[in-house]
């Protein structure tokens, strides 16, 4: 499966996302923000980073990039799209998913190995998990606090659009401990933590049995690939 990873100016985890796709058995395709060409990919990842320095609002300027026209169209047509961290912020700025992000409640950048609960295991990117499963995924951001008005929160909670929730510690003050959300259809998923950093033993988060051994993130990428194969 060809999975596109879009590089924006200031993208940082784009090569990590490509590596994760490769480790999951997919074929990563580098896409450039300034073009209007999705190169025939079957899924798209908007990677982490500080596109345009996170100036103005995180993800805001990148969401105006040329390629985002095609990304929005493809997402609306049902193509799986995953937004990681900065990519999550872009999805929100592009209104592909509900809500918005502001500065972490404690005002600082934070990095930690974060436990998440999978709340919806039926999206294109989470089908390999089971509902309620707890996974450990590195988190690292400054503007990770997910917020939305009460009505929106009630709606996404009611309709299963909350994909992940923080467990144990809410690291940024996100409403309802929300770590990731999806669109109504379940093909577009965004989350603050970085699944691509938990795909290779030795370079992932510490786990109870061994240091740096966490590979829970791999399931994001195998989920989308397996679902495509099953079609």
């Amino acid at each position, binding site marked *: 499966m060809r999975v596109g990873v879009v590089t924006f100016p200031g993208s940082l985890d784009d090569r990590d996302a490509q590596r994760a796709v490769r480790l999951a058995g997919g074929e990563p395709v580098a896409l450039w923000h300034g073009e209007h060409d999705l190169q025939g990919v079957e899924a798209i990842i908007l990677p982490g980073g500080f596109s345009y320095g996170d100036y*103005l*609002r995180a993800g*805001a300027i990148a969401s*105006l990039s040329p390629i985002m026209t095609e990304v929005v169209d493809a997402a609306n047509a049902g193509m799986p799209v995953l937004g990681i961290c900065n990519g999550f912020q872009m999805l*929100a*700025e592009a209104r592909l998913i509900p*809500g*918005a992000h*502001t*500065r*972490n*409640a*404690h*005002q600082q950048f934070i990095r930690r190995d974060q436990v998440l609960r999978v709340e919806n295991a039926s999206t294109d990117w989470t089908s390999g998990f089971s509902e309620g499963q707890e996974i450990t995924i590195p988190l690292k951001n400054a503007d990770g*606090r997910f*917020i*939305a*008005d009460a009505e929106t929160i009630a709606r996404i909670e009611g309709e299963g659009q909350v994909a992940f929730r923080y467990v144990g510690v809410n690291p940024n*003050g996100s409403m309802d401990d929300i770590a990731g959300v999806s669109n109504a259809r379940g093909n577009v998923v965004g989350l603050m933590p970085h699944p691509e950093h938990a795909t290779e033993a030795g370079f992932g988060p510490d786990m109870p049995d061994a240091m740096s051994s966490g590979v829970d993130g791999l399931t994001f990428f195998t989920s989308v690939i397996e679902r495509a194969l099953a079609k």
Partner: protein
Amino acid sequence: MPTIVVEVMPKAELLDPQGKAVAGALVRLGKNAFTDVRIGKRFELTVEGEVTEAVLADVRQLADDVFSNSVIEDVVSITVLDAAPVA
């Protein structure tokens, strides 16, 4: 050259952590006259040439679509200054 000032504030209903942090600092400094602090943004756009209706219309649209995110922010004012303001 004329300057257009666009001002954007976090929505009143939402928590503004930055404002809250500053409000806390004021209390610690013994400044108790202030019941709330909110922190927004001020954009100064320098315009080449005249500020026509068309330019203003552009700015209004940019204010809504680019300078602010309506999920969390409100545009509170758009004003035209003749020259950059001085302190």
